[in-house]
């Protein structure tokens, strides 16, 4: 089955003429037809995309099929953000990221399901029905980029793109047993991505292997004149030093002494991952969690939930104000209950008399997280933690809990608020349920190279990635 090829391997075999692009597309179409109805991964899918792909063979991505989360504006596909407000909306312009993928010879094969407006961590809040976890359809894929992560886990795409505000790439990658990279805020352009929390939003790759994420990042990273928050920091070739090893890296393990985590299997597996990294030549230490800002300690993630809730809801209420149904889309009665929850809370916390109490206070605590990471990265090259506090939860688990997402994402929220980069790689598989845990590897601003090097070294040394030997 050629749909199981990694991006790297597919390029290699096409060049050697050992595999044809047609075979890859045929196999992807086959699995799409077999499984998409049940798993609900794609909201739209171009069954004739091979016709476009044929002409791209000489470009770097060789015409290979890439799945795109449905919050990237794309010409030729509807863009809905999984909300009835945008049901049927056809954009007249292309997001910078998908434009770059197309220019590199990638083919957008379809648009993937997500939590409506990317609000959530389950892909259950989609107005077009939930996505199921391909590893075990009784379970959630995570979210909000659940469709993209599931497209990789089910081999329905060669690589995919998601977006993360706080956890929306890393948590579904963790739950689906795939690789998800959240770049530094401003490393990848947000232009043409439906805005959620604008001071946090970050597009990034969700792929089969670490190397594939590095390849995709090479094409999408960089300054964009249409997004003023993109950075001038030079973009590296992230594949160049990928295999250099992590000898003498200083690595800190975070959050696993916290009482909510310490006795769980995720803490145990994260410790084991630390051992693997130590055997690769890194100097690995446990960092203790602190309830106050202290030198050489990690500030507890528990306050990040409050900061994130206030900042994100505030930015959401402002960003979703533009959907009035006048120029495009449907009117505001079409918002689902999760969006309504968030708009109302955000409007409240930004209203007169409450903005100082909530929003400004939250931004102060956010500053503490920034200071904390600055201090830790003066000492450590990378920090590791569990990507999610648990395995994938069963279908239906998000319903009736307005804080479901925040609780699933709590271990990656501090890094998202600070805007640093992180990657989730598979670190354990439960044989009975076929469900995965992910290891979150973080580094300082624009140090994507370090997290990719660490993740690649870890991936090679362990057997959790099913694609690495394909």
């Amino acid at each position, binding site marked *: 089955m050629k749909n199981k090829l990694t991006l790297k391997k597919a390029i290699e075999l096409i060049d050697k003429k050992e595999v044809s692009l047609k075979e890859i597309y045929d196999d992807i179409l086959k699995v799409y037809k077999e499984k998409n109805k049940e798993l609900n991964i794609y909201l739209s899918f171009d069954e004739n995309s091979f016709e476009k792909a044929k002409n791209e063979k000489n470009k770097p991505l060789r015409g290979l099929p890439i799945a795109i989360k449905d919050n990237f504006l794309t010409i030729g596909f509807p863009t809905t953000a999984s909300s009835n407000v945008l049901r049927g909306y*056809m954009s007249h*312009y292309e997001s910078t990221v998908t434009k770059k993928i197309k220019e590199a010879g990638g083919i957008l094969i379809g648009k993937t399901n997500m939590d409506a407006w990317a609000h959530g961590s389950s892909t259950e809040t989609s107005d077009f029905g939930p996505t199921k976890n391909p590893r075990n359809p009784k379970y959630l894929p995570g979210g909000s980029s659940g469709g993209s992560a599931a497209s990789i886990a089910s081999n329905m795409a060669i690589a995919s793109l998601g977006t993360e505000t706080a956890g929306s790439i890393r948590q579904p990658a963790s739950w689906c047993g795939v690789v998800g990279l959240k770049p530094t805020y401003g490393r990848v352009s947000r232009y043409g991505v439906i805005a959620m929390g604008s001071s946090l939003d970050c597009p990034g790759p969700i792929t089969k292997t670490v190397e594939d994420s590095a390849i995709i990042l090479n094409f999408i990273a960089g300054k964009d004149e249409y997004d003023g928050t993109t950075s001038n920091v030079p973009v590296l070739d992230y594949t160049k030093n990928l295999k250099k090893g992590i000898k003498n890296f200083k690595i800190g393990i975070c959050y696993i002494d916290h009482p909510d985590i310490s006795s769980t299997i995720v803490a145990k597996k994260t410790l084991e991952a630390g051992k693997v990294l130590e055997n690769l030549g890194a100097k690995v230490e446990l960092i203790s969690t602190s309830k106050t800002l202290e030198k050489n300690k990690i500030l507890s993630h528990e306050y990040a939930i409050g900061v994130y809730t206030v900042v994100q809801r505030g930015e959401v*209420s402002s960003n979703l104000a533009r959907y009035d149904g006048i120029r495009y889309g449907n009117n505001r009665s079409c918002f689902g*209950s999760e969006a309504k929850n968030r708009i*109302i809370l955000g409007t409240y916390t930004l209203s007169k008399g409450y903005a100082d109490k909530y929003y400004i206070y939250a931004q*102060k*605590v956010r500053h503490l997280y920034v200071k904390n990471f600055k201090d830790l990265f003066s000492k450590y090259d990378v920090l590791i933690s569990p990507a999610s506090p648990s395995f994938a939860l069963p279908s239906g688990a998000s319903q009736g809990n307005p804080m479901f997402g925040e609780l699933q994402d709590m271990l990656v929220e501090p890094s998202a608020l600070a805007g640093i980069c992180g990657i989730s790689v598979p670190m354990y598989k439960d044989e009975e349920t076929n469900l995965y845990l992910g290891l979150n590897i973080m580094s300082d601003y624009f140090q994507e190279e370090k997290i990719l090097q660490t993740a690649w070294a870890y991936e090679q040394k362990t057997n959790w990635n099913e694609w690495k030997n394909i």
Partner: protein
Amino acid sequence: MKINKVLVKKIAQLAQIPVSEKEEEKLAKGFEKTIEIVDELFKVDVFEVQPIHQVTSLENIFREDKIDEKRMFSQNEALNQAKNKHNGYFVVDQILEED
């Protein structure tokens, strides 16, 4: 903090979100639960800490104030996703009352 339906109704009006009475109750409950968790924040000492709004140290990003023709829509393009239009214009709700 106790969140009541009256407050939810007022905020929903500010945010232009139509909500039914049944929804008001549900929203008030979710709101209250969320605020409870958010209030944990106030346990953190932020004395002399400045709020941060931009995390990657960018400052004053300017561009020329001129029209970028590459990104212009034709009138037809601008209109063709609108549900309600008239003679090449968007139709909007009336905001002024007639005498």
